[in-house]
């Protein structure tokens, strides 16, 4: 997967080098942006997106919002496009059922996922004006790497049993593809504002093939759900990234 990511990145860089004649906005080709996205499971719900996670199948579930801060670096190529590098942390908390054979109790344990998303993409500006300015379509490849830990669930009064709390999960990653449509404009001197809507999808990661037998948690505990916690994390991420609005403010640096 890492190789694929590098091949795509190299291809785009090569393209950029071949056509390195971009003019940029008033000669400025490089810009840095700070963006905000209120990601939500809202759109997924409207489209009746079939979430595997039990806790998001329920229509009575609250609409969830997460507040993401993104950092964007953008470099103009071809006059009508730009290469984009984006980073944002993506931390996430969910819940999963576990069963204690000793006490014959099914309880909830929280899943705390700490992740980072690195995206590399290309924005194609449709407005016939020098990039980066105007309306655009963006195409991104995102690498999402995260680590998961079982923590105290807010819905459970019981503390997390030690075998679960001590369990070390593998750090895993996934690749996602997304498309965005947006508009970038100058609102003062070299300061830009970018409003966009992005939709994407993250592919299953390799963890699904891990032989995850209950013995790993010890004889006393086993997960109730078929899904493994990492998969839960990923599936929830899919739901969140169905449609993401972003507002970003940038500075045309050089």
């Amino acid at each position, binding site marked *: 997967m890492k190789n694929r990511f590098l091949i795509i990145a190299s291809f785009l860089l090569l393209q950029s080098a071949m056509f390195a004649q971009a003019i940029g906005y008033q000669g400025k080709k490089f810009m840095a942006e700070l963006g905000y996205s209120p990601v939500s499971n809202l759109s997924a719900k*409207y489209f009746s997106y079939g979430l595997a996670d039990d806790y998001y199948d329920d229509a009575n579930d609250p609409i969830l919002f997460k507040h993401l801060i993104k950092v964007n670096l953008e470099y103009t190529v071809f006059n009508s496009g730009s290469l984009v590098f984006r980073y944002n942390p993506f931390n996430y908390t969910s819940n999963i059922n576990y069963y204690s054979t000793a006490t014959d109790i099914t309880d909830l344990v929280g899943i705390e996922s700490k992740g980072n998303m690195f995206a590399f993409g290309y924005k194609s500006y449709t407005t016939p*004006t*020098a990039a980066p300015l105007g309306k655009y379509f963006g195409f991104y490849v995102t690498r999402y790497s995260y680590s998961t830990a079982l923590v105290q669930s807010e819905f459970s009064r019981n503390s997390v049993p030690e075998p679960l709390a001590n369990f070390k999960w593998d750090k895993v990653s996934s690749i996602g593809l997304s498309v965005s449509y947006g508009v970038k404009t100058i609102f003062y001197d070299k300061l830009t504002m970018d409003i966009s809507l992005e939709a994407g999808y993250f592919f299953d990661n390799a963890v699904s093939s891990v032989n995850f037998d209950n013995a790993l948690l010890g004889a006393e505990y086993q997960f109730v759900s078929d899904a493994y916690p990492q998969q839960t994390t990923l599936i929830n991420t899919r739901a969140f990234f169905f449609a993401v609005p972003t507002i970003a403010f940038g500075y045309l640096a050089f």
Partner: protein
Amino acid sequence: MQICKGQVKGDYQRITNTGSLPSEVYTPSTEKYYNEIQIIESDLSKSDQKTQQQYYLESGFSIDEMMRSGTVLFNPEYNAYLDHIADILLKGDPELRSKVHFYLLRSPVVNAFAGEGGNIFISMGLIAMLDNEAELAYIMGHEIGHIAKNHGLDFYVEATEIDKKSSNNSLLKKSSFDNTMVTKNRYSQTLETEADDFGIQTLIRTKYYADTTTLDDVFDVLKYSYLPYENKRFPIEFFEGPNYVISKNLQLDSVKRITGVQETVSAKEANKSTHPSIAERRKAVRDYMLNVTKDNRSAYLVSENTFIELRHIARYELPMFYLHNNYFQDAIYASYLILQKDTSSKYFEKIIAKSLTGLTKFRNSTEDEVYAEKARFETYEGEQQQLYFLLWAMNDVELNVMALNYSFNLHLKYPEDQEIMPICKSLVNDLVFYHFNDAHDFYEDKTISRDSLYTLSDNANPKLKVVISEKSTKKTRKTTTVRAKRASTEKIRADKYKKPLLYAYYDYWKNPDFRKLWNTAVDERDLREQNAKDYRKAGIKYTNKGDTRDYFNGHKLGIDKVVVVDPFYKRIDLRKNGGVEYVSGEEGEINYLQILKDNAALLDMNLEIMDPLQLEQNDAEKFTDIVNLNDWFSEQLDFGSINMPGYNQGMIDSIANKYETDYFLWTGIISLRDKQNILGPIVYIALSPFFIPLLPYGIYQLVAPDYEFFYLSLLYNVKTREANVLKFLFLDNNDTRAILNSHTYEMLYEISTKPK
């Protein structure tokens, strides 16, 4: 040879702007507008106040635009002359005198009119027709009458009222648009009668001739305003040369009788006119003049010499006015009239050569026949009709041959002149491309007698049956005959009568300049044809269109210095009636000037902007340069793909030398606001339940106008006439500063960046 101020020793030079520029040229119109609306009376109804504001807005901006366009001549000597006449006319009314200002219009149209702000414009076409100062004084008095009676504002208010009524009043609503026009015209006629009265009374108070004969002459000017100032026979032999003759079959047996504009008109026709009929105006004048004689009065109170001098210049300026508008026949006839007295004026001989070249090039071009076909001979009256007929009936080959014959003869006469050879080259290029494929078509050895030449010419030009009806103005059968004849000229290109025409160059062929010209043209033609073949072989569709101009999409031109000429910015709101947004348009222009400067500075580029709003009082010479460059540009746009020097190319070459660059940029923006297509916002709103942010966006789209703008930038090498289309964009966006910056930077980047 008469000497006049627009003339230098030896030959005529066009009159230019001198002295101080009036503030209207370089002061933003918006400033003036805000000052003017202060005088609107506050006790008027809001609706009336708004109407008056709109009047000051529209008329003020229109006058200023005209002042900046170069149509107005700024010349202190002749302005002072008009001022002296005005002093005499308004001796007893210093207040009114202080309000009126006179200007000369560089236009061949016979007209005078009063505009907002007390500005009165008199065309040089009118001056050229007048007999004396008294006639001019009467016309000035009439126009002062419009100012004195505030007719401009009155007419605007009344016309607005009529428009309102025509949309509210059921009776008028049922009637056609014509009724509105008739009502407006009647009101306009009333105002014209008032101005006539004022003019006559003012004239009577002076010592100018104010008798019926003098005033009748003024109305005769109106009656014959569509004719040249003189009716002189035009002999077709004018274009003949030692080895070139013109068939007598191209001579009209008789020319159409001069009738003049109908003096009395029917009530129906009267309704279509803004002015009373000439007969009515003559009668009104006679009623006043019953007891006025020429005793103790004079045709001249200021200066006979100055009047004659001014009229002389006006007549000398006419040919170039006509030529600039591609009225080739008018330009030739007006030059011919002058050459009858000023027999060896290179300037007017060149105008004839340029006119023949223009007509030939347009006629040869298959793309644009607008100017070649514009002047049909049937409608023209008087001796000028012979010229119209000759140039109409002559086939394309002969016209090309004749034009080159005339032009190369001029080259031999004035070998040092820089304008004539490019004209000859242009004509030879067409001749070898359109008409003569064989370079050895010349009669090098044998001579042909003049009689034989006439016989050959007669055979090539069979006598046309031309029946000219003086009553019928509608297109009748004779138009069909005309069409048939034009079609037959196609045959001439290939038939046996074509070759003998080249005998016209029998003597020239011995001239190395001419041989070089011809051989170069043939080589260039063959090279173009070879290139076309190569393209076709490579599977690329390509047609060799001869000596045409290509428009390039300029990339990395590496030009060191560029002069931007009179950039424009217009804003139009298509949702409103009229729709021109004057104030924001002018602000936009000022912004655009700044954007050009800022982006040039970012690129460290040598960019000079020539814009009237950037001028100062003493920049008359620079203003004249702007006018000449704009004239050149508009000519080149008319030429389209026809590759031809500008009609005033010598002047343009000298301007390029003065500004130390050959590259001049014409650029501008038209910003539009239109009704929003309702479908888009509805779709956004309909989708908003799925994605909430679409709702405010949809609502915004519903109320916001649909923004569009057109961005044009053409860069010319004014010496070679090579053109680069840098911007020809129609964008579906608001023309925000950011977007304009982006495009302007890109444009200037392509101009200034050197290719690797």
